């Protein structure tokens, strides 16, 4: 049994289905990439796992316990945090206030200070800019804040929806190097991205999703073959 087990997940919006029986497993200490073109259902998958979008069928288990159908505020308390697409930091609040909000979903409040110290060590800019309005940070700094805010809840699994969105290439590499540190500290990571090459090379395993279904599973070795990667990403006709 993996740390996160998703089985036959079907979800959508109203009468429109977006995901059609998605299944995958994430082991402790591992990273999983999910890539695919626009409209493939990547963000819906993240939202369904985190409880933001209602599932129509299927199951999600975290550490062997079902989290299917739970509210987002309960899912985070069970150990799964989502860094949403576009970061969604609270621009009108300070950096510290954003981090304090992240503590809301933490079960063990007695170690909250250590958690804050840990993320400030991981992302020093959050220390030097503690009293800045979060909306005044650069895109890369905002992404660091969004990840730190999710981390202080002490998740076993961290879901990241397009963490590279709107960032310069050098900043993207910084973010991914921080993700390596986070995995080394014991948090497993699921990364949704459109940058197939980057994620395939980074993650232990990468799933290609198209039209709401898992189409292929790739390993870091596959990142070396651009043509095969393109075929897997766009389909056989690419």
């Amino acid at each position, binding site marked *: 049994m993996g740390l996160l087990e998703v089985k036959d997940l079907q979800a959508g919006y109203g009468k429109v289905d977006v995901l059609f029986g998605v299944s995958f497993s994430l082991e402790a200490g591992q990273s999983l990439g999910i890539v695919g073109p626009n409209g493939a259902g990547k963000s819906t998958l993240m939202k369904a796992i985190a409880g933001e979008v209602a599932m129509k069928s299927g199951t999600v288990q975290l550490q062997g316990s079902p989290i299917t159908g739970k509210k987002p505020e309960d899912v985070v308390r069970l150990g799964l*945090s989502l860094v949403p697409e576009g970061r969604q930091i609270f*621009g009108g609040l300070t950096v510290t*206030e954003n981090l304090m*909000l992240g503590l809301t979903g*933490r079960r063990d409040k007695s170690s909250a200070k250590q958690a804050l110290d840990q993320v400030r060590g991981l992302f020093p800019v959050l220390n030097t800019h503690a009293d800045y309005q979060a909306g*005044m940070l650069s895109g890369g700094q905002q992404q660091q804040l969004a990840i730190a*805010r999710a981390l202080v809840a002490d998740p076993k699994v961290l879901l990241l929806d397009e963490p590279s969105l709107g960032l310069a290439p050098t900043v993207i590499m910084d973010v991914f190097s921080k993700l390596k540190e986070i995995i080394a500290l014991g948090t497993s990571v699921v990364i949704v991205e459109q940058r197939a090459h980057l994620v395939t090379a980074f993650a232990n395993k990468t799933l290609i999703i198209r039209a709401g279904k898992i189409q292929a599973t790739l390993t870091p070795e596959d990142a070396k073959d651009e043509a095969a990667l393109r075929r897997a990403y766009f389909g056989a006709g690419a």
Partner: protein
Amino acid sequence: MQAILDAISLGGTYALAALGLGLVFGVMRLVNFAHAELITISAYLMVVTNDLPLLLSFLLAALGAALLAIVTELAIYRRLRGTGPAIMLIASFGLSVGLQKSYELIFGALPRSAAVAPWMTGSFEFAGLNFTISSIVTVAITIAILLAMGYLIERTTLGLQLRAAATDFKTARLLGVRSNRLIGSAFAISGILAASVGFILVVENPQVDPMFGLNITILALVGIVIGGISSLRGAALGGFIVGFILSILNTYLGNARVYAYSYLFLAVVIILLVRPGGILSKRNEMERV
């Protein structure tokens, strides 16, 4: 001087009404027209418990308004969450009218009256100027409540969650903010604020009828729009501006005071033309892209 004090007093009262409405709007995007009936029930409760000590009478009124606010959230708004703003708005209209009719059945259509805190209706002279006690007390109460609300919103965890939810409730929930608990708290606080407004109004005008809280609620809604609809500070500021302008107009227009609302709404139109998102909107939307 008395006119300025009266204007500050009325402005403060409208600020409290607007803050109560703004709290609920912030977490639910709901324009709660039934806020008027929270003000009304608190005024009725203070009239019927007038024989009790004033503080106890007010506490009962605040408890009643807070309970009614929570019951309306549990029984109606919670069930309609996610149905869209138009349905929520119509529901709040329906609830407002339904509560007015219920008050009519319980308390009668004619005004119920009692001298609540009669010692506040007197006046005194200071430095050659005449002051009414009620305006002094109202200003003091308003400042105390606004300071307490400022502390709650700016310095407490609940306040931080309310501010976050007012900006983006979905993301706040992803971080663990419990939606039902937060919305329930916002309704309870809005009930207590409504009771504060009810107390101030019933001292000034001890004639309570089923539509007692309607006028101030509608004008407080106008205040929220001009202050900045997504900001609690904006709501309080907008409410204060509306009450202040209205009081000044009523004082200085003399026989032409029938046009006070016309001038008030002209001022509102000008403010919105200059700042379409409300007075504090630009500051709140400050964001580096």
